[in-house]
């Protein structure tokens, strides 16, 4: 079980830090797409990939939460989840606005929000790194 959860959590981070099929590094790794810019705009395809990364990461967090609530992780996991939620709660409205701006091809606002999402994920990753692991 410990190994399975480690795979899920690591998988979330690996996919978040992965390389796309067309060779672009993800927003979370520091590849060419780490900073959206006028030269590197937020297209619907980039948004789609960012959402797939977020789905993988959030799935991992959800499994972690389930295991925490089931008592399979040290009780301090509740504090860790509360800390992580401070960031995941900020991410939801960022995604809602980002989708709107990408649909309208408003690149100025889309780029700004994309980079904000990157910063939040970076802070969130730091919280995940210190969260207690499965017993």
């Amino acid at each position, binding site marked *: 079980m410990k190994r399975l959860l480690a795979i899920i959590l690591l998988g979330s981070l690996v996919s978040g830090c992965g390389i796309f099929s067309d060779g672009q590094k993800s927003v979370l790794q520091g590849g060419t797409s780490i900073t959206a810019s006028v030269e590197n705009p937020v297209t619907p395809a980039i948004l789609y990939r960012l*959402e797939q990364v977020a789905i993988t990461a*959030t799935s991992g967090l959800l499994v972690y939460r389930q295991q925490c609530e089931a008592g399979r992780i040290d009780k301090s996991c509740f504090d860790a989840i509360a800390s992580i939620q401070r960031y995941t709660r900020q991410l939801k409205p960022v995604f809602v606005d980002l*989708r709107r701006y990408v649909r309208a091809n408003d690149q100025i606002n889309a780029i700004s929000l994309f980079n904000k999402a990157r910063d939040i994920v970076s802070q969130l990753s730091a919280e995940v790194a210190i969260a207690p692991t499965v017993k």
Partner: protein
Amino acid sequence: MMEIAAILALVMKGISIIEGLSQAGQPIASAINAIKNLNKPASGITQADLDQAEQVLDALMDQFNLPLVRPEGA
């Protein structure tokens, strides 16, 4: 006798893995699907794909962001 105890321990470990998997089933399925979707070429991404990603991500985030119910002492 030792062998039976070892086998029993293995069986118990197997049961705990199955329990964990069944509990984590939906998030795991979403994660596997999302990893597969990362390989989709940009030209193949449709509006329906975008709509579905939005729906799945929002549902997962809402679920994770629900207030925690802490057990006593946590």
